[in-house]
């Protein structure tokens, strides 16, 4: 691939240049029948060394770009690889079918699960069709409807998260986007079946959380999870949207930050160079992690499961506590 294409990040360019050279030599090998395997091996070794060097020194902003990478696999790309068999299901039974929120039933090595997730589009037409991965109230209500079905039939739920934010159009406000998200938060917290959520790309604020109140929350290595996009936060707090890189650091939105802050339970490693360089391998890693957590959670009695889920979110947050102020009455 030409290294200066729009869908290659700046820090990926040295890698894609080597990729192009390797591909060219391979082509010549076939065309002319020369054995250049030694050259290829050297170049591949160089590329892999460069790859691990570059990826060992990523800034938080680099990882934002990876999470939003135009070639990053999206929810349905994972669904197609992960499930042995699946069908998608549609509609919230109230208003519409939201193409930014997909869901259905699927089989994971013999385990029947309900899956839901936000879906982004690849090309311009598809992006508009998927509303750039920003779900509307009907999307959150569809997801909740499917999760209640999972509860009814005692199947685990898998939530796949990849959204910049929930939709904030006039229509979304008219149909109660806040109510839809709030209700999901409340109802997911007491859903009587195991829930595993995986942040695949962008974990954008309330739009992500609306399907992420789970027993286990996992993140792919180069995904992000944030209360607000760093650009907006820099514009609001620092009145300077150009400070998005510094803000990305300050907001601590990378997967290892979320793990350290106790917001996620596990970070799933991505293939060298990111999930888009080997979609199959990335999807198989996600699948293995989901299966492991579902199997652990399935052993728990429902009461125990729900109490653990409540305590998990109950304990999130960091504050200081001193003795009550002098005039305090209370108990």
């Amino acid at each position, binding site marked *: 691939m030409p290294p200066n294409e729009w869908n290659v990040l700046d820090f990926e360019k040295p890698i894609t240049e080597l990729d192009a050279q390797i591909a060219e030599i391979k082509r010549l090998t076939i065309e002319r029948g020369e054995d250049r395997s030694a050259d290829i091996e050297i170049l591949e070794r160089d590329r892999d060394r460069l790859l691990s060097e570059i990826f060992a020194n990523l800034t938080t902003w680099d990882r934002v770009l990876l999470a939003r990478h135009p070639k990053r696999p999206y929810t349905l790309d994972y669904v197609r690889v992960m499930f042995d068999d699946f069908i998608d299901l549609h509609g919230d039974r109230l208003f519409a079918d939201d193409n930014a929120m997909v869901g259905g039933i699927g089989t994971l090595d013999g385990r029947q699960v309900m899956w839901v997730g936000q879906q982004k589009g690849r090309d311009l037409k598809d992006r508009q069709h998927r509303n750039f991965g920003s779900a509307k109230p009907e999307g959150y209500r569809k997801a909740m409807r499917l999760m209640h079905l999972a509860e009814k039939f005692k199947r685990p739920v898998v939530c796949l998260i990849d959204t910049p934010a929930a939709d904030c159009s006039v229509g979304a406000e008219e149909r109660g986007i806040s109510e839809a998200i709030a209700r999901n938060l409340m109802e997911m917290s007491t859903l009587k079946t195991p829930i595993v959520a995986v942040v695949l790309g962008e974990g954008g604020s309330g739009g992500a959380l609306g399907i992420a109140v789970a027993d286990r929350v996992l993140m792919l290595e180069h995904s992000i999870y944030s*209360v607000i996009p760093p650009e907006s936060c820099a514009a609001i707090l620092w009145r300077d949207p150009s400070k998005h890189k510094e803000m990305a650091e300050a907001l601590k939105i990378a997967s290892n930050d979320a793990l350290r802050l106790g917001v996620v339970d596990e970070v799933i490693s991505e293939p060298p160079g990111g999930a888009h360089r080997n979609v199959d391998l990335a999807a198989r890693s996600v699948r293995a992690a989901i299966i492991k957590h579902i199997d652990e959670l399935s052993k728990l009695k429902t009461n125990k499961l729900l109490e653990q889920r409540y305590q998990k979110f109950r304990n*999130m947050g960091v504050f200081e506590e001193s003795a009550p102020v002098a005039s305090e009455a209370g108990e």
Partner: protein
Amino acid sequence: MAPAQWFGLKGKAARKTARQSIDALPDGLWTKCPKCNEILFNKELEKNLRVCNKCGYHYKLGAHERIGTVIDDGTFEEMDTGLTPANPLEFPDYETAIKKDKLKTGLSDAVVTGTGEIGDHKVVVGVADFAFRGGSMGSVVGEKIVRAIEYAIDHKLPVIMFTTSGGARMQEGILSLMQMAKTAAACAKLQDAGLPYIVVFADPTTAGVHASYASIGDFIFAEPGALVGFAGARVAQQAGLIHRPDNFQTSEFQLEHGMIDRIVPRRELKSTLIKVLDFCRAKEVKPDAA
């Protein structure tokens, strides 16, 4: 001389002065209504629960002022006063901002919680204060709300939340987002306990607070003219929303679209709450009734 000239201020500057008086009582005798420009005598304004007697504009209330308008005098007992923000992300300037707002408001964070009486009902209340970091919800706000709800469950009391917030506390990053799940999960427990949950939206109630514990009340009321919506004002601005209806993201808009039960003027709020609490009161089981 017209009272407006006493200020020596006009237009924008006069409005700014009026806004500044929201948090602390102005030293002057007069305040100019930011909506209709009426000059209001401060003592009258206080008596009218800080509502303009000409146009009905509802001034913002501090948490303790708000408590004074609904909770019976002398019955409020504050809870969890020892909770104060940490800086878990080591976010630049966060500690300075907190210190400043503590001084400005006398509060330890953006919500005051406690128990009190309304008529013959004992209730748990949570009252947000916009003057503290825009009423934003971080770890302390989330924790205080959850503790208040858990107290209500343990003591079988109704919960009333007065919300005013720009959303999540950005300086606490992802931890502030998690407060949405944490508070909503506590609301689910309250629901399971069969206890009443009443929410009153004050200006503004937006974003992370609107999309969590605020929007799942059994009864939801709003003050007239309050800004109420999902996308915070600046976020909506950034998203460049066009073709917005005139009343977009107001209490009136939310009522029109079925998202709230009633718009209740401040003066009628206490009597409305009592009616609802009467309706919800668990019927006493008489031992000899059978």
